[in-house]
């Protein structure tokens, strides 16, 4: 039962595009977006601040960083290390990456809150083995124009050069993308009666 004010989100079965490598483990959300750029009441414009302190020095001059490298301009798939997005729950981190053009992240593992936040905005967090990630990074570094195709339905990845590997994903998130239900408000509100029953059955707070 659809809520009159809500429409379902789009189905996301595959993500294609060029990749940008950032192969470091335990990249935290303070690095993805420093706290001083959280002081906005909208998410608009956050793309400019992705990895800000790693991309710019104190005078605002660019430093060497994949996100400053014209080679990777227009890339849509981020190749990241294990436990990507650990630390603060700030959704500003995936929002900043999305607004910087990223549409999917590939990494051996993700911090849970980050993965949930990314899913909620329609940016799949896709797991790949460390070994395959290494190969992929080599491929992309040697030939940045390599196109990558991630197929969520079949859990596979293939490159324009013909290399393939399996990928994995939290099954609930994967289904949400395939069903187009990753924007969860409508899905949750479909159970409005059960929600009210549950609320009535539980102790009130005060």
């Amino acid at each position, binding site marked *: 039962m659809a809520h009159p*004010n809500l429409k379902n989100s789009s189905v996301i079965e595959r993500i294609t595009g060029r990749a940008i490598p950032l192969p470091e483990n335990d990249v935290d959300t303070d690095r993805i977006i420093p706290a001083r750029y959280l002081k906005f009441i909208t998410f608009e414009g956050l793309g400019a601040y992705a990895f800000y302190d790693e991309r710019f020095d104190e005078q605002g001059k660019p430093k060497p960083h994949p996100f400053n490298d014209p080679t990777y301009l227009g890339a849509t798939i981020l190749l990241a290390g294990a436990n990507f997005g650990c*630390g*603060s729950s700030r959704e500003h981190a995936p929002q900043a990456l999305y607004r910087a053009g990223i549409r999917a992240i590939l990494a051996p593992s993700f911090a849970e809150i980050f993965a949930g936040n990314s899913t*909620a905005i329609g940016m799949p967090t896709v797991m790949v083995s460390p070994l395959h990630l290494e190969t992929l990074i080599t491929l992309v570094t040697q030939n940045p124009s390599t196109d990558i195709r991630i197929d969520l339905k079949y859990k596979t990845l293939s490159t324009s050069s013909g290399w393939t590997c399996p990928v994995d994903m939290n099954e609930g998130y994967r289904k949400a993308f395939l069903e187009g239900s990753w924007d969860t408000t409508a*899905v949750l509100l479909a*159970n409005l009666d059960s929600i009210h029953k549950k*609320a009535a059955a539980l102790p009130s707070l005060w």
Partner: protein
Amino acid sequence: MTLLEKVWELHKVATLPNGQDQLFIALHLVHEVTSPQAFQMIEERGLPVLFPERTFATSDHIVPTDSKARPFSDPLAEEMMAALERNVKKHGIKAFFPGSGYQGIVHVIGPELGLTRPGITIACGDSHTSSHGAFGALGFGVGTTQIRDILATGTMALSKPKVRRIEVTGILPKGVYAKDIIMTIIARLGVNGGLGYAYEYAESAIQALGMEERLTICNMSIEGGARVGYVEPDEKTIQYLRGRPFAPKNIDEVAPYWLSFRSDPNTSYDDVVKIEGNTLEPMVSWGINPGQAIPVSGRIPSPKDLPPTERDTAEKAYSHMKVTPGEPIEGKKIDVAFIGSCTNGRMIDLREAARIVKGRKKAPHVRAYVVPGSEQVDAQARKEGLDIIFRDAGFEWRSAGCSMCLAMNPDRLQGEEICASSSNRNFIGRQGSPKGRTLLMSPAMVAAAALAGEVVDIRKWEI
């Protein structure tokens, strides 16, 4: 069943088509930084806040700690504060703002007000919501889009985590605190060791802790990768909640229900880890994530001592922290000392730090700050004269907020300053300067470092 499974089943509304569970959120805590976009989203969709009576707000991240006079000197902070004020008024949400006597860091005020309690689900747009597990609740840190869902539906979509029981046995030696237990756990299991798990903290060394210390442990679960951490409720839990502003008046009638939230004696766990409490030492972080921490008697590890997957991060840490493998952490000079945060900004933390500081002076080159976790903590500490003890020692006594833990207000490190900090994260840039450096430790160790001007081993002090 584990406590997690019991609370989960109690709050489960439905299984969603994608296989995740829809979980009812009994208490939703809201603050100024992660909520404005969520309110905007529900308004754009024409949806009301479904359970305003289960939603509570405060301001903590951006509030200045020197003067709370409005408008705040930072126009962006003022805009965020004003947005929250508008949103709570519009949606009929109870809020505790500066001057109310109840304002403070959201994870300090939840328990203080008696809103946090055993057997409930709690969500907040802040990763340290895991703190509330100290009461046998399940606290979930969430992002802004999930805040939207909770505002609009009172529920959220979640996958049930596995449970790892962490048994801390024995008795903690003198000078070793709750902070050292959790820092040891993170150092041993890694910052990603808890991915997919909830942490159940148990056994004698945990049971011996008071509620404020259990909050410190559960608070940093997320630093170990575990979104949720909890301790089974006991008599201390009941005693803590007795008489709190929002706690039930008939607490003795409610107590058996609350105490029923325990893991069954013969239940099976996905993993069990044992830690010998007697062997623990004061911990100090040396690197750029909370897992890069060593006992104060230890030396900074060499890459060859570390698993291959940790070497790159270690190299980055040596370079950022300007430390050398093999160097002892004891004796490391500090520039700033910070006592506060949702990890260690409560009465027990301030009392213990004050006990060390009393009658002494901070090192002349050190800037030292005490930031109480809430207005209630501030008031109680002043009543006990703790503010005077710290001021006499040359510390600045500030008013409640998150302050230098994440430096969204004017309290921040400058340049390459090194800060001995009772907070929870030593990430690059965390304390407001991209080149700033953080050494995490217990509040007692921070107090001692402020006096000595360098990292010291609190166990060697006559206190």
